[in-house]
């Protein structure tokens, strides 16, 4: 497992308040996006299950397509979050020249 060894536990990251605030705000925004997607899915299943039978793409019904979209959206939003949070807010001012993750 070269490269994945049980290594040092010294944090690479020294967070400041701006970084924490930026990450929290971004997390909440992306959470709201996903909550709307998930909420729409659950409400459609609950109150209009017949709509989930409609074929929408390549012979697949809305139930399958929406389900796959929810799974893919979780990963895509997670990647976006990881990408946008990769640098410390104050990285240009820090003595190490930033704690890029």
């Amino acid at each position: 497992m070269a490269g994945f060894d049980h290594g040092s536990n010294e944090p690479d990251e020294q967070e400041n308040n701006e970084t924490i605030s930026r990450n929290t705000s971004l997390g909440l925004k992306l959470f709201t996006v996903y909550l709307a997607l998930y909420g729409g899915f659950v409400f459609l299943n609950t109150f209009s299950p017949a709509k989930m039978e409609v074929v929408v793409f390549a012979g697949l019904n809305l139930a399958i397509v929406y389900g796959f979209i929810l799974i893919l959206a979780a990963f895509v939003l997670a990647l976006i979050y990881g990408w946008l949070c990769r640098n410390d807010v104050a990285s240009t001012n820090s003595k190490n020249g930033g704690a890029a993750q």
Partner: protein
Amino acid sequence: MIYEPSFMAVIIFGGIVAITLGLSFWLGAKAKSAKGYFAAGGGIHWFVNGVAFAGDYLSAASFLGICGMIAFYGYDGFLYSIGYLAGWIVALFVIAEPLKRMGRFTFADALDSKFQSRGIKLAAAISTLVVSIFYLIPQMVGAGALITPLLGFPHYVGVLMVGTIVILIVVTAGMVSTTYVQFLKGSLLVIFSTVLTVLILQRGLSTDPVNDGKSTHQFQIIGPAASNDIKHWKSELKLNEKDRLIPLDQGEWTTKDYLQLTKDDKISYWKLTENADKQFFLSETQYKQNNKNGSTIINGLPQGTGEGETDFYPVGRISKLPGDEKETGPLGITEFLSTIRESELILWGSDTIKEKDGAVLTIYFPKPTSGKKVLSPGNHPKFAGIRRDEIYGKLNFLSLMLALFCGTASLPHILIRYYTVKDQASARKSTIVGIGTIGYFYILTLFLGLGAMTSGSLDVTNSNMAAPLLAKSIGDWLFAVISAIAFTTVLGTVSGLIIASSGAVVHDLMSSFMKIEMNDFAKVRVAKIASVVVGVIAIVLGILFEKFNVNYLVGWAFSVAASANLPALVMLLFWPKTTKQGITVAIFTGMISSLTWILLSADSYKGIYGLNPDHAIVPFSQPGLVTIPLGFITLIIVSLLTQPKPEGMES
């Protein structure tokens, strides 16, 4: 069903267990301190931790339960996959980084970081123990269910084996070995599920699936007939004068619509159904009769593999393919799903009837179902409420989906994994890897479940065996590998839960709440003793709860975790007026109210007490919709009532 033990499965299983234990002993040398034992020294690589997240999360319920539910009920099982994954969004965007920032060993650390309150430590520790033990029971029951077909041992031997191996793993090196076990298992699960999915698509679909070189038994479905006329059925069944076909309308049979056929002194039962066009059908069934003297009859003969004995037929097939084809050949991803949608499949239902002489009959009957219905929600009895007009069925579904969404980020064995990496960035990155791995696996579950549904290999009595039996229908080697992975799935999840429980006992209860002074060495020693005790409790409960439905118990754990832990975590992070009293009372309120709701629900009336579910006190079975908001409201009210007085007022 009777399973032949597989020599190859035993060898592969033994190999994987030996590697796992070897890894544990080797890594044990690296974890001498308390931080090493509980949190792997905070030095696990984020990628390893991310895959280990998947290992932790893809428990017996996820792997065996979801595949089985899809195989027996179609799309409804996939709803669990979607709900389980969505919960990770709460974990990543709301919980992961603050939790890592605030805690050290347990999630109680995080809750208590602001207040240093013994009350919070006590509440969080009890909640951790309750949720972990609820989550442990289905894992142990799943272990027992797996060991029977794998090695041919009884249920309790399987539970004892898993318990003993897990205690050995946990006691040797704590979180380090548990993490690598989960990494190994998570990787193997994803790799071999991919292999299995590719083989399912390569095999395509057939109306006559072959298992071990034998065709699947084609159950007779006679009809349609314009009326329910015995003479007509006798003629269709080509019965002679000695044969007897009688409608059953006494006792518990009254509402079940069965006919009993006695032919050559062998009794069989036929299910009568009527469709929307008032046409009647008569279906051949298979049944199990448990007599009062302990003997078991299957389809009119003693259960066994010898002469004069019989066993259940494997089930699960497509009855009609589009264009009345017999088989499709290899299919692509969307082609596989769209072909199933345009086909007709045979699903299975069951009825249980208690006879006057004390014998209990469980009858399994085929239900021809359109592919459109199979790939739509509302086929599982617990989800059927969304297809009806009454509101409680819909609320029950909403409640379950809410609990799945909120439960993940409240599970103690998931939360402690945030302390095994060194910083918040690693916590974030490992969660992203976890979401990718788990999401990919959950997409595969749809193909595995539908593959099992059409494989002709299902055990009609045990949905948990769908994935291993699907693998067996493709090849013995694959069955051996998948069974071994399923077993390590149980091993890994149980290890994580025992670590979380021992952390709660030593760190939260003994050290923080009881204020017992212990050095690092003593903490680790006591934690290992606690692990053995929790492991033994898990073994005992796993044996006692043998007959319980695995998914049912997991649902409990999710609901209790979400109701007790999530309100406290979220409000602590986002509401400055949160007080220690608010957190403590909210945890106890969420935990007790969700447990009480579950115990007073129709599911418990039927499954635990054997009472009429219509007499249940609460209107629907899933508590989350009521008890999660209750946790939040309680926290807000108690916090507002216990606000610290402003400094000026005090003076």
